[in-house]
């Protein structure tokens, strides 16, 4: 069953050149897709359109089998699709971690007790026990990214959209994130520049260029483990 279907979506920011030109995308349940492309290709814009933060100039968006057009339609979309932002600071807007993670469940209508227990369980699942009372602005970059993921997962979404989740992370946190994602039972799309990461976490990689999304029939992945002294597989080239 197609969870997300975009048909002929076109979009341009007011006063700027077209970003998406009759783009199509289908995401089926269980799929784990990577999305690559140069800066400005429209990858984040695509996510914004799916979440209803932007309205397409033309085309049709169908999510969970229903066409979505108005703000009202997207309210239900946002309860079921989780979006991990590029900048974790934008997503952590409560001063404390527990309140931030509980924000989503509270908005879903859960009671305070339920929201608290969901938040604590989510933090535990991500290996973030004892983070509840931490102050968000004092977390390290990697910690912020993981807590931001917790805030999104606490809503128990059916689909995840991750925007450059490994940007700025050290090797250890990247590995932790990779393992976490592999262990989740979720459908997701990941925007990333890091091929190695996408190799571990996705089964197909699409490319965005000229305002459209190109299927992996045209993009062949070559397995290449490249290491430096500090990488997971240190080696030297002759």
């Amino acid at each position, binding site marked *: 069953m197609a969870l997300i279907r975009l048909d002929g979506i076109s979009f341009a920011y007011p006063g700027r050149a077209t970003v998406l030109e009759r783009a199509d995308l289908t995401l089926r349940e269980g799929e784990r897709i990577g999305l690559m492309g140069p800066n400005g290709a429209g990858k984040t814009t695509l996510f914004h359109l799916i979440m209803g933060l932007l309205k397409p100039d033309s085309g049709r968006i169908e999510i969970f089998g229903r066409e979505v057009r108005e703000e009202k339609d997207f309210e239900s979309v946002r309860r079921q699709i989780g979006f991990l932002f590029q900048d974790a600071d934008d997503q952590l807007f409560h001063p404390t971690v527990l309140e931030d993670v509980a924000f989503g469940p509270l*908005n879903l209508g859960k009671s305070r007790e339920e929201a608290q227990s969901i938040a604590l369980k989510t933090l535990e699942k991500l290996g973030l026990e004892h983070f509840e009372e931490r102050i968000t602005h004092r977390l390290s970059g990697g910690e912020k990214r993981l807590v931001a993921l917790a805030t999104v997962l606490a809503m128990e979404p059916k689909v995840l959209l991750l925007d450059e989740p490994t940007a700025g992370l050290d090797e250890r946190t990247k590995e932790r994130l990779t393992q976490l994602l592999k262990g989740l039972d979720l459908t997701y799309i990941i925007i990333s520049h890091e091929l190695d990461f996408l190799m571990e976490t996705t089964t197909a990689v699409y490319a965005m260029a000229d305002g459209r999304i190109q299927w992996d029939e045209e993009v062949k992945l070559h397995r290449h483990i490249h290491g430096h002294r500090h990488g997971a597989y240190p080696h030297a080239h002759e």
Partner: protein
Amino acid sequence: MIQEPFAIGGSPLHQTDPRLKIILATAYSFLVAVLQGFPALLTALVLSIALVAIARLDSRALFRRLGLANGLILFLWLLLPFTFPGKPLASIGPFALSLEGVRFCAQITLKSNAIILALIALVATSPIATLGYALHRLHVPAKMVLLLLLTYRYLFVLEQEYERLARAMRMRGFRPQTSLHTYRTYAYLVGMLFVRASARAERVHQAMLCRGFTGRFRTLKTFTLARRDWIWPFAAGCAMSGLIMLEWTTGWH
């Protein structure tokens, strides 16, 4: 740069229900603000010092805070005694100090310091985040609480953005002087700060929408009064009635 030096600690005041502390601080501040008589004012100052002692605060940070507030009071001491009409007390050259002026300044000094010390002991001994949630439990409207929490949350982010911008300017040889070029540079710095703030606000708003926000703001944290917390309203009640009694009987001399 911006810090909360008194928020963490093990004293009894640090552990008291913050809702109680907010209410007490407000009541006490307003009471002391309207006192006039010196016996009452001196007693209030002593009470405030006692509170600070109970809170076991770091003295260096404390004096720095007091210094800031007393700066303005010092300014008043330099001017008011000379501009107040009244019985001349002494003279420095052609300027005469009046008794009323000195008395008024003394009142202000006692009041100000009594209130500020009490505020530090009561309110600064809880983290600001906690105070925000306490205000929500005290039925402050949700819009106000959300605004306060958001502003607080992003202060440090914006402070860092500003530091980055200022550093970049300095790398380009900018040195502040009394010149139009300097003021224009600062204007652009401030402008850029506002632009970045606005752009981030847009993203934060989107993040809130994506987590299901439709206008209803709820918070998790609840507070429960411990049994030993009850000593504070009791002590405060006695102290404040005592002050009122003092004021009533000794009056304004």
